[in-house]
């Protein structure tokens, strides 16, 4: 019945780290592109694919053994097999859309191989979970949304240089599944698990969490239906979807405010910034598409990603060193200079406000912030590799 279940802390650190660092580098690259005035669909996908999807793929790879008890086989090989076509695909996509290079067909194939392949393997594993918690449910919906997003995206990319051009209907459905399905559900699912546990908060009971998750999913599907059949009636459905996300954001803010661990640390600040912007979605919608999408991606999702990276990377560094039998390594807190992480939080929060007024002004702040994030996270990574080079007290094999 439980064949193949493993609770080992898989995968080796290098496997998700490739996606985490790759993601931050694409965020730097994307910020530079906006700073130089390149504000188009190519640049948008440097953030959605290069930054967000990259970190999310790494996070899923790391979280799957924890929430499902099933690990990816040969994780380092999998990371390389996904990362190489993925990053080449993102770059090809960017040069196709932003510089008019005719790279859309190879980019589409590479992205389909990388994200389609990863999505199918991950979804299959998610269906093996011994317990269908609201987190597993939201993760299934998220990865299923990723597959729809990729299928539609690849189709549109291939049609880019054809005589038919882009289909507005497909583009809208692609955006709905990408923003609210893939990104939204993954963050919702992870926060159900992480917020009560990391910060010691009350939690919504399981029935209410499942109800909210299903409510979000059904409303997303109704929106897709609205785009397909009733183009005029879409706004009410869309606002309903945004209000449900607002409900989730407010409930989570309420949980965080009543947390029992009173210490204020940078990751909590990033959660507040992200959830704050999410709670304002129904108002931001009236600002127009570009600002709405930018604030959703960088104000909301980008902030949550920073919050998670500041926890995950030092923890994994510490955990792997500890499992080799060392006791003298720095603690998680000692691996990150908290003052610099707070400085990054300030830059990121300022950048998200600046998105309301000037994309280029925001890009300058984002660029400084993402460089700072990279530098802040470099220390736990260096510590990991320094200990990896030492002989283990246990003489344990290292993968």
């Amino acid at each position, binding site marked *: *019945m*439980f064949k193949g*279940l*493993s*609770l*080992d*802390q898989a995968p080796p650190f290098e496997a998700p780290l490739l996606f985490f660092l790759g993601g931050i580098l694409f965020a730097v690259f994307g910020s530079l592109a906006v700073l130089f005035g390149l504000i188009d669909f190519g640049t948008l996908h440097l953030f959605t694919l290069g930054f967000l999807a990259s970190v999310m793929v790494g996070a899923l790879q790391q979280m799957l*053994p*924890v*929430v*499902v*008890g099933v690990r990816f086989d040969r994780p380092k090989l999998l990371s390389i097999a996904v990362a190489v076509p993925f990053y080449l695909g993102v770059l090809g996509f960017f040069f196709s859309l932003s510089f008019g290079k005719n790279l859309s067909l190879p980019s589409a194939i590479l992205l389909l191989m990388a994200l389609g392949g990863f999505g199918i393997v991950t979804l299959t594993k998610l269906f093996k*979970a*011994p*317990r269908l*918690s609201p*987190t*597993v449910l939201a993760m299934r919906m998220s990865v299923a949304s990723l597959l729809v997003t990729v299928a539609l995206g690849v189709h549109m990319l291939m049609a880019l240089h054809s005589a038919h051009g882009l289909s507005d209907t497909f583009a809208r459905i692609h955006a709905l599944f990408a923003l609210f399905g893939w990104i939204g559900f993954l963050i919702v699912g992870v926060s159900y*698990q992480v917020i009560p*546990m*990391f910060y*010691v908060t009350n939690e919504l009971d399981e029935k209410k969490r499942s109800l909210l998750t299903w409510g979000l999913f059904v409303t997303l599907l109704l929106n897709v239906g609205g785009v397909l059949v009733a183009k005029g009636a879409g706004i009410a459905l869309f606002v309903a979807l945004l209000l449900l996300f607002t409900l989730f954001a407010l409930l989570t803010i309420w949980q965080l405010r009543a947390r*029992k*661990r*009173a*210490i204020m640390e940078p990751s909590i600040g990033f959660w507040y910034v992200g959830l704050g912007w999410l709670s304002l979605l129904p108002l931001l919608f009236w600002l127009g598409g570009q600002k709405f999408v930018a604030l959703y991606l960088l104000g909301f999702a980008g902030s949550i990603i920073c919050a998670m990276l500041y*926890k995950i990377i030092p*923890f994994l560094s*510490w*955990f792997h060193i*500890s*499992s080799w039998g060392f*006791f003298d390594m*720095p*603690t*998680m*807190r*000692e691996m990150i200079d908290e003052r610099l992480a707070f400085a990054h939080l300030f830059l990121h929060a300022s950048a998200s406000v600046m998105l309301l007024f000037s994309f280029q002004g925001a890009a300058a702040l984002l660029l400084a912030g993402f460089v700072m994030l990279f530098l802040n996270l470099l220390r736990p990574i260096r510590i990991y590799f320094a200990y990896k080079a030492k002989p283990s007290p246990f003489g344990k094999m290292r993968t």
Partner: protein
Amino acid sequence: MIQEFMTQDHRECDNLYAPLEQAINAEDFEKALELFVPFRDAMLRHFAMEEEVLFPKLEEFIGGGEGPTYVMRMEHDQIRSIINQLGEAIEAKNCDKALGLGETFMIMTQQHNMKEEQVLYPMSERLPIDQEETLKKMKEV
């Protein structure tokens, strides 16, 4: 039954840790030491319930070897080591070290708890083990 009881016990341990962290942060080491003892005892009792009663029961069906219970025991050792170091840091009145160990304890323990709550406890509910008897023995630890 087991899932509910053990999950609740995880939360109770978390609730004992939160005020301890606050006392460390306020550099009130006398109070921190007072709060540390029941927190450590609750954690060690939780591990003992699992290692002495629940895991051997599960191993009758899923085997020991390097399977899930082996990994959980290894992580218990890692957590026990952090708790010991945390106690030493509180005694030495080293605020930064104690907060650093506390944070590391928290994340280590929570990812460990997630695995138990998502995988191991559901497993124990679905295997043909006597739930009531196992629960009774765990409470006696």
